[in-house]
């Protein structure tokens, strides 16, 4: 040990440190750099506010998919209103996101209809809508507001006119009187 200490000289130590790329650090504790995330936090806060605004802006949440692709419209004044949503996808009819009837080749099975294949009234849809109407009427009575009977029809762009008519007819039987078709903004026509 003493021999080793005796053999090492300061020049060798310096050469070894240089070779290893290390610098002699001072004895005092190394300063740890703080996280510079304030500006990142600002950006995130702005994004968060924007997303939260877009999340809660519409009274009705509609999510398009392959099974529910909405047609495009040139209408640009009437936004969504709070109402009962009847959605018609390629696979099912839904009331407020609850499936009420399956569709086969874009049509309701005749077993679901009151008058068979040629009938217009869809029984499970009528039951679901009547239940909703009852609930809405109860709410309207408690808040002293009139029951408006408005329904939003959110249908896939390839839905047949026949099915649309069946749904509207059934909703009419359940005391709905105002209907609004929902379409996505973006159609451009050359109307002179």
């Amino acid at each position, binding site marked *: 040990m003493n021999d080793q200490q005796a053999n090492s000289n300061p020049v060798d130590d310096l050469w070894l440190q240089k070779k290893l790329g290390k610098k002699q650090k001072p004895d*005092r*504790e190394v*300063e*740890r750099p*703080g*996280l510079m*995330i*304030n500006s*990142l*936090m600002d950006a*995130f*806060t702005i*994004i*968060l506010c924007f*997303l939260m605004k*877009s*999340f809660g802006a*519409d009274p009705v*949440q*509609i999510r398009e998919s392959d099974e529910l692709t*909405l*047609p*495009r*419209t*040139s*209408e*640009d*004044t*009437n936004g*969504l*209103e709070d109402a009962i949503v009847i959605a018609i996808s390629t696979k099912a009819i839904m009331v407020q996101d609850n499936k009420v009837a399956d569709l086969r080749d874009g049509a309701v099975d005749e077993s679901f209809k009151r008058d068979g294949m040629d009938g*217009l009234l869809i029984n499970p849809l009528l039951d679901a809508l009547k239940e909703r109407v009852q609930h809405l009427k109860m709410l309207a009575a408690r808040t002293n507001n009139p029951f408006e009977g408005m329904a*939003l029809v959110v*249908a*896939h*762009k*390839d*839905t*047949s*006119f*026949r099915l*649309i*008519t069946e749904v*509207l*007819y059934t909703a*009419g039987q359940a005391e709905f*009187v*105002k*209907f*609004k*078709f*929902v*379409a*996505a*903004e973006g*159609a451009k*026509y*050359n*109307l*002179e």
Partner: protein
Amino acid sequence: MPKKRRKEQGFEGDPLIPIMNLVCMLIPLLLYGAIFVRYMTLDVNAPKIAQGQPQEQDENKSLNLTVMITDQGFHFKVNPIHRLPWMNMSTDTASAGPDIPKKDDDWDFAEFNRKLKEIKDLHREEVNIILGAEDDIKFEVLIKAMDHSRGTPESPLFPVVTLTRGVV
């Protein structure tokens, strides 16, 4: 002195990390739920369930503009006293040729719009239109027809749409 500085840095930086985690989780969640497409509504009156029989219009002097969309094109019907020369007005829509036939295998909406303008010029106060279609006509075509029959805010045509069941 160095000790004091380190303490201050810890106070600023470290408590932000859990908040950052929360924000980083919230952003994908909100992005998933965010809607970037604006949805619009088109008012429509409840369908008139009239199967096969044309309405009695002769005694009434109102226009009663009805447009049927078929696989062949557009068929116009009005109260006979307001009939225009180009209107076929056959009682059997299916066998009669359309007033506006399809063009390039698609409905000629430009011509449809022109004809509606022609009718509107003769009946300035009229705002109602009855739209009907064959059973297999797609919803997209109906919306397009509604868009064209509504016109523009500067020159509205027939913005009050009532649906009718089937081809009359």
